[in-house]
């Protein structure tokens, strides 16, 4: 049973300028057994936050509370945390057993206890028959599992993982992702997992913390951040390929852009914009590639949200195909049924499902709700 509270945490590095925080006002309550993912572009403060929780970086301002106890000044070894780093390495001269046992030996655990913990971890990870091998005689995936085993034997109620898969090839990454998810289901260890890969975040997290430039942009389940992004950054960062954005002018239920795009909004959507005071204002329209359709049925439902466009680039991806298209000067990408695949240069009628569209304030970039 463990809960973590990050109360308005700030970090400024020693050599940084006065008001230049690497992390600002990070506020999060993590529930027991939760799998939390910090995601965001390079330099947004993910590792810094994780390392403050681990005790490896000092907290400049704010409180870290673990199970009701103030932990800002607790030494890293006393925090009951196991950390898995990006560059999973093993001691080359030690066997798999000794690699996993090493941290416990340092902590003077007795032999039987160590054997019990290592055997358990090996069993969970399917490494039992490799315990006597040296790292050089293991595959990449097995080595990565030993690295996880080194964390599991600690029996810590909190796992911190900093991009543990980012140096693996794509295939191994997918299988290790599943392995970590399975481990979490089995061990229920409260986990904070850092990645810059939104797919990893979406597939693994109970809740995602989206960060940009040291600030939390949104905290929510994968579904929440995907369906109701709080601002344009979250909308563009979550989802692949990214959401399409159009700078448009909104007036009397219709949006237009300077490149010749004209779309009529469904009544429900225009009402929200009207009530929020955006009539006759510039706004940003966002629409996901999967919400742009090529079927005729869609056009019948939304004739005034249909545009005649030209395919610029297209990719066939099994059941779906991706169309990078253009209406006059405006480019966007649509994911459509494989049957609606078109070659570059083809003219195709595409319908925007505007009930699924998002609108953002042009200046603050906040979602208009």
């Amino acid at each position, binding site marked *: 049973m463990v809960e973590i509270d990050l109360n308005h945490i700030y970090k*400024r*590095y*020693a*050599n*940084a*300028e*006065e008001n*230049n925080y690497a992390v600002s006002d990070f506020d999060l309550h993590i529930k027991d057994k939760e799998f939390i993912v910090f995601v965001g*572009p*390079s*330099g947004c403060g993910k590792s810094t936050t994780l*390392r403050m929780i681990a*005790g*490896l*970086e*000092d907290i*400049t301002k704010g409180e870290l509370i673990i199970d009701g106890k103030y932990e800002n000044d607790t*030494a*890293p*070894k006393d925090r009951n945390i196991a*950390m*898995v*780093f*990006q*560059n*999973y*390495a*093993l*001691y*080359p*001269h030690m066997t798999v057993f000794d690699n996993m046992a*090493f*941290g416990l030996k*340092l902590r003077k655990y007795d032999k039987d206890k160590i054997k019990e913990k290592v055997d358990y971890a090996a069993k969970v990870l399917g490494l039992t028959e490799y315990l006597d091998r040296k790292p050089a005689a293991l595959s990449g995936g097995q080595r990565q599992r030993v690295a996880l085993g*080194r964390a599991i034997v600690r029996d810590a109620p909190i796992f911190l993982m900093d991009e543990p898969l980012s140096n693996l090839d794509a295939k191994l990454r997918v299988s290790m992702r599943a392995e970590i998810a399975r481990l979490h289901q089995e061990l229920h260890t409260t986990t904070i997992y850092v990645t810059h890969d939104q797919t990893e975040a979406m597939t693994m997290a109970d809740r995602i913390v989206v960060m*940009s*430039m*040291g600030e939390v942009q949104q905290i929510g389940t994968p579904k929440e951040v995907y369906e109701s992004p709080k601002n344009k*950054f979250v909308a*563009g*960062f979550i989802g692949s390929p*990214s959401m399409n*954005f159009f700078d448009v002018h909104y007036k009397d239920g219709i949006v237009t852009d300077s490149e010749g795009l004209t779309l009529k909004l469904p009544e429900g959507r225009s009402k929200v914009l009207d009530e929020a005071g955006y009539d006759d204002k510039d706004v940003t329209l966002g629409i996901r590639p999967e919400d742009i359709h090529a079927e005729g049925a869609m056009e019948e439902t939304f004739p005034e949200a249909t545009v005649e466009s030209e395919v610029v680039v297209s990719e066939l991806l099994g059941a779906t195909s991706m169309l990078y298209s253009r209406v006059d000067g405006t480019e966007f990408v649509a994911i459509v049924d494989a049957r609606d695949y078109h070659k570059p240069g083809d003219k195709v009628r595409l319908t925007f499902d505007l009930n699924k569209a998002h609108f953002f304030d042009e200046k603050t970039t906040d979602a208009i709700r």
Partner: protein
Amino acid sequence: MLGSIAKLLELYPDAKVVIEPSSDPHNYNFLISGQWVTIKKDHLSNREKFLLSLVSQDNNNKSINNQWWNFLVHETDKIPAEKINVRVLQFEVQKLESDDRANEWLSVFEDTFDDVVDSFWINKYTGILIEKETNTNMDKLEVQRMIELVDSDFYTKSHVYVGQFWPVNDKLPNIFDMERQLFHKSLEMKERVNNLSTVILDFLIEQNLKNTDMFKSLKNKIDIDSKTTQMINTLYKCDSNLAKTSKMLFLHRNTLLYRMEKFHEQTGFDLKDRDDLVLCFLLLK
């Protein structure tokens, strides 16, 4: 913490930020966020002295009796080994639990190298490992992996500066002087394992430019917020490739262009121009 140092200097004008802890017994030494601060005992009250003596880290460099160290710091001319090339790895380890642990830490770290000539602590936090050149030496990334491994077992936070390989002769101590300074510079950097290539720019700027009036005035002219910093650093990292940069920043290409344009208007520096970009990159250091 920078704030704390500033405050300390304000309250105690005698205090100084220094590269190496002072070995003068009239001073107390502290390590604050990786920076040594030394303070003179003379003007302190007895109460202050007592408190400080409990927390200060006395410099015991002087008591190191190691032939390599004595050679490297010009204390003896006796060359400790011949006909080999060596490199010096300098490290600083924070968050060690105790002195016993320090020795264990060093022996584990040493074990990850195949051709160690010598290794030793020079004070409570920093140490030296001297390694012979062979054809199996670890590169920087491998050293980084090893240090992460050792850190994860000891719950420590370590910085390493990986020196170049040099013949052991009378020039080595002079070279080491420079590597020592580079090591100290590297402690301020984001990456915890560094070498000549990763530190040299920051080092040169600090030595030659940072405190000049020209550089300071230039810096004042540019409104450096985190967005601008990120834009310039990323442009530099991506070799001015706009598509790559806008992807890394999760910006639309046009938004990026717009920001570059605005920057050009405000500062006169055109980030599309290679030379201007490099200059701005250096200004941010």
